[in-house]
């Protein structure tokens, strides 16, 4: 029986980790191409979560159904943010970009605070308490749906980057900025597109995460940190790395919460991050920058 508990917790952590991974995937895509660290990542996620909550409470729309529309809204937000604000900052030093995005994050958190107040909100669906029995495993139905949805979204994103011409063009920008300019790619527009795609990942992940835990405006910064940990662990700029990092962090948090106190669980994620940075600074699946 004891082994069953560990297995249950591990599977639950793994499924939550997939959603974390999707969120981190957005950050990784943005950094990999645009070379800007999105310090407003978690805050963008809270926008998506509040959108899902508003749609659910006012129109009764299930967050799982709303994944694509919410991702679309966040895509537009990300596109506008990159085209309007970040593009002029591409060649500025890191600390300049940092302040820009910190300011954006500050505005998002506090606009949400003004609109929704500081109280925690969540979504109660009809299947909130359902679970599947698979052998000795008891798995939350919500987490299964969410995990499956994550896999679909991720597969679509991978397919976009591998199979479409636009995806290829974006990868060209990431590989060689000057080269992409030389062959006549509209790099600024592709950057905006990439930021939009990263934001869309966040939108999809946000509308799923709302099913797993409560949201407050103050959740943003901790989600940003979580995304950093995952992405650095997996390899900044590496897409499979982000997913792997997400699953690893999800597992670590779940198991640390079981073995120690839940409040200390993120200490283990940070510990993992520090270890990775020290022994493999480019991340588990990252390529070393020249």
């Amino acid at each position, binding site marked *: 029986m004891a082994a069953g508990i560990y297995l249950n917790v591990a599977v639950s952590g793994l499924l939550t980790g997939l959603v974390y991974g999707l969120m981190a995937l957005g950050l990784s895509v943005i950094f990999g191409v645009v070379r800007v660290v999105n310090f407003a990542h978690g805050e963008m996620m809270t926008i998506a979560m509040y959108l899902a909550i508003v749609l659910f409470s006012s129109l009764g729309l299930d967050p799982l159904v709303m994944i694509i529309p919410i991702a679309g809204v966040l895509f537009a937000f990300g596109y506008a943010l990159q085209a309007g604000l970040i593009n002029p900052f591409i060649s500025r030093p890191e600390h*300049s970009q*940092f302040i820009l995005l*910190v300011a954006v994050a500050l*505005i998002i958190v506090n*606009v*949400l605070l*003004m609109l929704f107040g500081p109280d925690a909100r969540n979504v109660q669906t009809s299947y909130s308490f359902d679970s599947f029995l698979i052998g000795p495993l008891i798995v939350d139905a919500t987490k299964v749906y969410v995990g499956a949805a994550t896999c679909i979204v991720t597969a679509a994103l991978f397919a976009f980057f591998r199979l479409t011409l636009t995806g290829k063009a974006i990868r060209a920008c990431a590989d060689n900025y000057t080269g992409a300019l030389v062959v006549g790619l509209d790099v600024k527009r592709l950057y905006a597109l990439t930021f939009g795609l990263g934001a869309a990942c966040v939108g999809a992940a946000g509308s799923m995460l709302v099913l797993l835990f409560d949201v407050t405006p103050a959740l943003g910064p901790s989600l940003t*940190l979580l995304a*950093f940990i995952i992405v*650095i662990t997996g390899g900044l700029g590496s897409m499979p790395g982000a997913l792997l990092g997400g699953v690893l962090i999800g597992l670590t948090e779940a198991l640390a919460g079981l073995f120690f106190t839940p409040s200390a669980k993120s200490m283990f994620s940070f510990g993992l991050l520090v270890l990775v940075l020290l022994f493999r600074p480019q991340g588990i699946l990252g390529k070393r920058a020249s």
Partner: protein
Amino acid sequence: MIGRLFEETPRISLVLLALLLAGLLAAPWWANDYLLTVLIIILYFAYGGQAWNVMMGFAGQLSLGHAIYVGLGAYTTAALYVHFGIGPWLGLPVAVAIATVCGAIIGFLAFRFGVGGVYFAILTIAFAEFARIGFDHFTWVGGSSGFFLPVANYSRNDLWNLRGNPTMFYYLMLALTVAAFVLCHLLLRSRVGYYWQAIREDETAARSLGIDTFRYKMIAVMISAGMTSIAGVFFAFYYNNLFPEQVFHISRSIELILGPIIGGIGTLFGPIIGAFLLTGLSETMQQILSALGLDVPGAKQVFYGICLLLVVMLLPDGVWPWLARRLGLARQRR
């Protein structure tokens, strides 16, 4: 040493500096209690910003986790005071030593393994967050329920134990800020300072010139960490309560570095100007919004964020370089 401070500085900036200092020295006579409290906060950020500027502005190492040094300084002296009755002035060297060692550890681990740029910045966040959660579970200093100093007796000032009224803390903070300014000035004009600037501009080139970049980056981190921990000592004895959630939180680190970035990174006056501007802006906004009856939670921060956006978009080098050009104070540096 002091003579070197004044040479090569235009006379007009010396006059302005003297006026500013005189105004600040006389502040307890012209400022009311509220304004004095605001000035204390401004000086606190000016001091902390200068400490951070040593590492980022001079040596080019971006730290986003300076809250860890503030927190270590605060908790060390507070714990020595509460548990062993050791006063803050005796605790201070211990705090500085602990923070410097902590900075050395972070620096050693990062620079030894060639961690730089964004990765280094995120490593510093990770250490600060690690400390935050660690102190949450460190019951000897109160854990997450907070650590409290015996509340001050405001009737008389006890400088030795740092118990007293805001005026005492004001002069203490002013002295620290001036001392940090002098130290930064001397550092920037010293051999180490020129090595740092070489590393900041181009690390590979600096190394090929024979500069031991690892060593000088370590020195920058250690000096910056030690200086920052003194701000923590002030923090503990001024506020009298410490919560890991507040002291080590990433927003503390961000607050600390906004001043120098807005004021002008790598400049001597930048952190000070930035602290005045940002804290002044924040307090004015508070006043205006409450006068208009708009003080909804969050409104102030939204405007603050918009102002930050505007400054960073319009004045990429910060306010001070722009102001210095306007006032005709700019020397032909760089």
